[in-house]
C-alpha cells in the first residue's frame, strides 16, 4: 500500500462517455471521496495512476474504438490498488478474467451500490 496523504480516499474514474463520467463523478464526490479524472482513455488513466496514486479504481470496461480498460486494470493490480468494474454487457474478456473477487456494476449504475463498494474498498482510516 502506498503512503497516502491524509484526507478522503481518491477514486480514479475511467469512463469514455462524458455524461456518465460526470454523473459518476458527482456521485463519488457527494459520497465524500476525492475524484481523479475522469479519464476517457487508457493513456490518460495510466498517467493519472502514475502521478496521483489513487486508492480505488472505478473502470468502465469498454472505452470505445475497440479498446478496453484491461491495461489500466493490470496496472492497478500491479500497484495493489483495488478496483470496481462497470459494464454494459457481459461479453468482455476482462469480465471473465477478473470476474471472481472483483466488484461488478451493471449499467446503468446503481449509485447506492456504487457507494457501498467504495466504502468497502477504501482504506479503513479514510472511509
Amino acid at each position, binding site marked *: 500500500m502506498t503512503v497516502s496523504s491524509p484526507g478522503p480516499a481518491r477514486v480514479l474514474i475511467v469512463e*469514455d*462517455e*462524458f*455524461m*456518465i*463520467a*460526470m*454523473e*459518476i463523478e*458527482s*456521485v463519488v464526490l457527494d459520497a465524500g471521496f476525492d475524484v481523479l479524472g*475522469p479519464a*476517457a*482513455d487508457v493513456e490518460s488513466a495510466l498517467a493519472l495512476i502514475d502521478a496521483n496514486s489513487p486508492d480505488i479504481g472505478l473502470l468502465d470496461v*469498454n472505452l*470505445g474504438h*475497440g479498446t478496453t480498460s484491461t491495461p489500466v486494470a493490470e496496472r492497478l493490480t500491479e500497484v495493489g490498488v483495488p478496483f470496481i468494474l462497470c459494464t*454494459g*454487457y457481459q461479453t468482455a474478456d476482462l469480465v471473465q478474467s477478473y470476474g471472481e473477487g472483483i466488484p461488478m456494476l451493471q*449499467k*446503468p*449504475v446503481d*449509485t447506492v451500490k456504487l457507494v457501498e463498494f467504495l466504502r468497502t474498498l477504501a482504506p479503513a482510516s479514510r472511509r
Partner: protein
Amino acid sequence: MTATQSRLAALVIVAITVAAAAFAYMSWRKSQVEAFSATARAALANVDLVLDRALLTVRAVQGYYIANPGAKEDGLVSFVEGMGPVSGLRALAFYRRVPDAERASTDAELIRTGRSSIGIWTLSDDRKRIPAATAGFYYPATATYFFEGAASAYGFDILSHPERRFAVNMAIQTHLGTSTDVLTFATSGAEPVRGVIFYKPVVIAGEVIGLVSGSIDVDRLIQTAKAASPDIHEVDIEIGPLELRGGAPVDTPNITDDSKPFYVIDEQNHSGRVWQILVSGTPDILDYARGYGLMTLVLLAGLGAAAALIGYTTAARRGRELQSAETRLRRTLDGLVPLVFMTDPGGQVMGANRAALESIGSDETGITGKPIDRLPLWEDEPSNRDALHVAIARAAAGEERRLDVLSSETELGQTVYDVAVRPVATENGRISHLVVSALDVSERVEAAETERLLMRELDHRMKNTLQVVQGVVRRTAHSHETVDSFENALLGRITTMARAHDLLARERWLGADLRTVVLQELQPFEQGHSITVTGSPIRINPKGALAFALAIHELGTNAIKYGALSVPDGRLAIDWSFDSDDDDRRLVFHWHETNGPKVTVPERRGFGSLLLERSITYDLDGKTDLEFAYEGVTCRIEIPWGRIRPMTASTHFRERLAEGAKA
C-alpha cells in the same frame, strides 16, 4: 452457304457432270461413227473405181468385136494393151458361136494350133477337162487375155458349164449383158480364186456371133476396199440373183446406208444383179480407251468438285461452329459481373474477362504471365498475398478455396471481393488450370457490418442513455430551485439527446452531418430571430454529433434566456471550417452573438456550461473558449478532425480483416 445449299449445289454438279460425261461420250461416239462412215465411203469409192474401170473395159472389148467380128486373138491383145492395165480385171475372153456343123473343123483347128488337145472342152464334176458333149452349138473360148498368169482356157465351152450356163443363155437370149454368181474360176491354178464373170453378147444384125467375158477377182476387190483404212475389219460382197424383168437392166445410182454405227451397206446394180457391198469395223481399242477415258475424266472431275464442295462447306461449318462456340463462351465470360481470371496451376494469369480487365485498367497482354497475387488490383494489401498464395497452392492440389480479399485503395475507397479459386481438371484428372473469380461484395459486407455496428451501438446507447438520464436528472435537480425550471431544463436536455439519436439512427449510427445537427438544434430557438449558419456540410461521427448537439443546446438555452436571442433585434452567426489541409487538421467552430442585451458574466458556473465544456473536451480532445463579452457571447470550439472523423462500415471490416490476418 448452309449444309442444304451445299448439298443441293453438289447434286447439281453431279447431275451436270453425268450429263457432261454422257455428252462427251456421245460426241466421241458420233465423231467415231462419222469418221468410220467417211472411211467406209472411201473404201466403197475404191471398189467403185476398180469395178467401173473393169466393166468399161469389158464393154469396150464388146464394142471392139462388134466392129471387128472376124478379129483374131492378136487383134484383142493389141486392143486391150492399147487401153493400158486395168486392175481388178483378171481376164478377158471371146467365145465364138460355133454351130455343131463346124465342131469337127473347130476341134481340128484347136488341136492343130496346140491350144487344146481335146478340142472344145468342158469341166467335169471333179473339175477335170473333158471334151464337150455334142450339142446344137458351142461357145468355145477362141481368144483370151490374162492380166495375171492363169491356166489356158482355149476351147472351153462356156455354154456347157452348169454354173455359168444360165447367165450365158440369158445373155444370148436377151442380147443383154449378164453376170454369174460368185464362183471359182476355171482358170484358177492350185489356189482357187473366187470371182464374178460378166458376159456381153456380140450381136451383129440381130444375130449373136459370140460373147465377150470379163472376170473380176472379188477377193482382190475386197482387199482394195480394206486397204482404204485399218479401221475396216470386214468387207463382204453379196450378189443377188439375175433379174431381167421388163427389158434392159438399169444401172441405178449407188444407195449407201450407214445408219448403223460402224456398218455401211452400199447397194448397186450391175448387169441385172444387185450388188451389196458391206463394210464393217470398229474404232480400235485405243480409240475406245480414249472415249471412255474422256468420259471418266469428266465424271471424276465433276464428282471431285462436288465432294470438294461438300467437304469445304462441312469443314467451313465446323470451323464456324467452333469459332462461334468460342465467341459465345468469350461473350458469356465478358458478360459476367464477377472478375474472372484463368491461371496456370502455379497462379500465373493466362487470361481474364472484361470485368477483370476493366477493374485492373489493363489489356490482356498486360497481365498475362503475372502471378495472380501480384495484380495491382489487390497487391497493396500484404495480407492478400499470403491468403491468395495459400489458396492457389491448395487449388493446384485439387481443393476449392474461397476467401475474402480487400482491394488496393483507390480514390473510390476499398473493395471487398469474395474470391473463389477452383481447379479445372482435364479428362485424365490432371489439373490444367485454375479459375479465379472475384465478386465485389463491398455493399453486402458493408450492409452486414452496418447491421452489426447498429446492434452494438444501440445496446450501448440505450444503457448509456439510461445512465445519462439518471445523471441529468440528478444534476439538473441540484442546480434548479423551482420545479418549473427543473422540468424545462431536464426536458430540453433529454429532447436534445433524443433528437441527436434520431438523426444518428437515420444515418445508421455511422455519423451525421454537422450542418444538419446545428440546424436541427437551433430550430426551437429560431422564432423570428436572425440566425446565420455559414458552415458547409461535414460528416462527423456519432460521438461528435452528440457533443455538438448538446453544446448547441446549452449555448442556445443560454442565448434565449439571457443573450442575443432574448431580444427581437439580437443576432446569431454560426460558422465552422478546418484550420488546415493536413492530416492532423482541426475543425474550428464559432458561435457569435451580437445586438443582444449587455452581457454580464454569470456569478456561478452552472451545469449547462459544464456540460458544454465537458461534451467538447471529454474524449474528443477539444477545446472550448466561452467568452461573456460585453457585446455578446462568443464561443470558439476546436476539435482534432481525427477524433470526429466518421467511420464507414468497410473501415470497420478492414480493421477486422487486418486483425484476422494477424491472428
